[in-house]
């Protein structure tokens, strides 16, 4: 059963906006880690994960995101997440991930926060 996540990157100055479409499960580990590495090498100071059409995020997917938070903290990058459904916002709060990641409804609002710092 193929459920690979679709990952693409766009830029706003030094902010890498990573669009994620599809399931965030253990299968997403390689593409997510790879895109983060590439964005960092390309000079990302801030990273926005923009979730699109993500009907399914499981605990293995959350663990991958925690790994991303770990790497971002090591590199002093600001990590933000946008586009999460209210259900997944609840799950992220439940496990404590929102203590380490800022959530915004849209990419535009996250960029506004970045640019106001």
């Amino acid at each position: 059963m193929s459920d690979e996540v679709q990952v693409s990157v766009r830029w706003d100055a030094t902010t890498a906006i990573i669009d994620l479409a599809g399931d965030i499960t253990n299968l997403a580990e390689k593409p997510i880690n790879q895109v983060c590495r590439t964005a960092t090498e390309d000079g990302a100071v801030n990273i926005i994960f923009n979730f699109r059409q993500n009907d399914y995020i499981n605990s293995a997917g959350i663990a991958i995101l925690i790994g991303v938070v770990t790497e971002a903290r090591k590199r002093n990058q600001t990590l933000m997440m946008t586009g999460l459904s209210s259900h997944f916002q609840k799950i992220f709060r439940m496990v404590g991930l929102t203590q380490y990641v800022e959530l915004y409804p849209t990419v535009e609002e996250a960029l506004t926060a970045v640019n106001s710092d």
Partner: protein
Amino acid sequence: MHPHGRRVVELKIPSELGYEKIAREAVATVARRLNFSQEKIEDIKTAVSEACTNAIRYGSGFDVRMKVVVILTADDDKLDILIKDPGVAGVPPPVDVDIPDIYGMITGRRRLGGMGLYIIKELVDEAGFVQDSDDEGSTQFRMVIYRVGEGE
């Protein structure tokens, strides 16, 4: 479905990650017929996904020749979900799990993961491993979601 009584849906999925999505869609359909709210349906879908993933990962050791059985029992007042796996991992862990130590994971003191049972416990009314003397060796995980406060 109310007040026609009990309805049972049973499905078997291969022990391969990805197939838990079938159980997830099936339980959403049953929960919809019980008039659970959309928010509660999302909770139930996530709980079933996590429980099936555990059954595939630990209960069947990713052996696709094995099956995970999902039994959905819809009553007038509740949805009862039983997930059975071959139990290759032996005795299941206690369900009384703590809040995930995210800080420990981020700082490398704890391994990433181990959140599934905690999420399940938070999303459903009852959750736990059950014994079945007729089905020796298998592991069974039961979840119950009551319709209290849900739409009629």
